[in-house]
């Protein structure tokens, strides 16, 4: 077995923990805890970006690490916590599938993602190419989180976690996107959360709840 350098081992650990956090998010019913898990994902992304920047010596990665810290660890969780307090949504209703079932689906999805990432990883030349599969798995798991939840709030959290996965994927495949793209994405996410925050209030005013189930019928009552 070839020996993996220590900083790469740390990166791998970050990747594995990211995957674990995605599963924890999938299993979690309390929205407050989901936001905390999202913040933890942000911390891991920050650590991974910093490590990668130090390893490769690419300066723009330091900038993107700082951006991650400011946006994903501090600002977004803060906004989400504030929204939760304002809207008083602490619990999601029972998810569409029970927890153990969701977990098993998640496992299948992880296997699928790992299989899918194999040819991509073979083409990539970065040292972190083995984590592409994990990034893909995080994206798909967040997707499942969005599918199985009913409240708008948890769907937005799933969406943000998906963005985390994409960011990590870009990082491990190509050492990060060009700076201008990264700034654009960060701004998009920020604006999305702000706009969705306003949306939440509108939805609640209209339906007296954040349950997206109400969207399925066009009129109040036929």
């Amino acid at each position: 077995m070839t020996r993996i350098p220590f900083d790469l081992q740390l990166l791998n650990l970050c990747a594995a923990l990211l995957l674990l956090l995605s599963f924890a998010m999938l299993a979690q019913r309390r929205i407050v805890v989901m936001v905390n898990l999202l913040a933890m994902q942000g911390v891991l992304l920050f650590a991974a970006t910093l490590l990668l920047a130090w390893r490769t010596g690419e300066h723009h990665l330091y900038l993107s690490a700082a951006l991650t810290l400011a946006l994903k660890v501090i600002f977004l969780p803060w906004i989400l916590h504030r929204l939760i307090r304002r809207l008083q949504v602490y619990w999601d209703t029972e998810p569409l599938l029970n927890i153990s079932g969701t977990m098993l689906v998640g496992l299948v999805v992880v296997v699928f993602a790992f299989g899918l990432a194999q040819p991509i990883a073979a083409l990539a030349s970065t040292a972190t190419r083995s984590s592409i599969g994990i990034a893909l798995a995080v994206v798909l798991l967040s997707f499942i989180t969005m599918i199985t939840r009913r409240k708008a709030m948890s769907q937005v959290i799933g969406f943000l976690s998906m963005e985390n996965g994409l960011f990590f994927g870009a990082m491990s495949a190509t050492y990060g996107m060009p700076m201008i793209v990264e700034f654009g994405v960060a701004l998009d996410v920020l604006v999305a959360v702000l706009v969705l925050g306003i949306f939440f209030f509108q939805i609640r005013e209209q339906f007296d709840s954040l349950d997206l189930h109400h969207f399925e019928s066009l009129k109040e009552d036929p």
Partner: protein
Amino acid sequence: MLTQALELVVALTAAPLFLGWINQCRAWLQNRTAPSVWLPYRGIRKLFFKDAVIAQNASALFRLAPYIVFGTMVVAAAIIPSMGTRLPLTTAADAIALVGLLATARVFMALAAMDVGTAFGSLGARREMMVGFLAEPALLMVIFVASMISSTTALPAITEHLATQNLALFPSLAFTAIAFTMVLLAENARIPIDNPATHLELTMIHEATLLEYSARHLALMEWASALKLFNYACIGFAMFVPWGVSTGTDGPASLLASIPLLAVKLAVAGAALAIIETVSAKLRVFRAPEFLAVAFLLAVLGLLVHLLLGA
């Protein structure tokens, strides 16, 4: 041969002490006056001096089961490399056979519990089997991860491989360590699944299977369950903290040298178990499958991460 005997003696004597230590830590954490660490020994000694009472309609299986359960636990203790990896019996069976051995003990315990035909006995037996059949795949997955890292299923070889290689971070082993802890709690009737301190309640699992036993049979059963906990702890040490186990063949001296470190590991593990049991509440029986599903999931994740990252 002498080394093997030494290891067995240590396992047999340390197992009740380990249980006593956990109980003492728990009592401290819960602000109670702690019972003596030697209490399990006294209980076992007391039971050996009593006269056995056996139900009228009990078959021979009922009398035989304690000896079989105790015997399998002793054999398991001999196979697990708790002190040295080069002992005569450690190569007798690999980890998969070891899991089978533990399953044998469980089957006999359940059969004996159902034998007399009381409601509590069969209820406990069924629950025990339910927990067992969910915990076993998780345990096997945990062992497979360690086996894949060291490319062997023999527990002593796994220990040697992990103890002698250069220090490396294994995310997969971190996952499986959590999974293993959950399996340990479930299999040994500890708190999130079962409460070891409860008697005659509708929630009990392990205790319900022992209700009909008395005197020397009960003593053997209790000693066996203490030994089971000790065995599980040593399986955990063999995979996750393998350092300090004697790997040479130079007789009892090197084994004796490994005793202090084993004692330290057991002390830390016991304190950690006591903390886990104090901070968590007992789950409903119907939540047990969810708990063990998470353990299984973590173990499989460990396997997948190992396959992808090679670490």
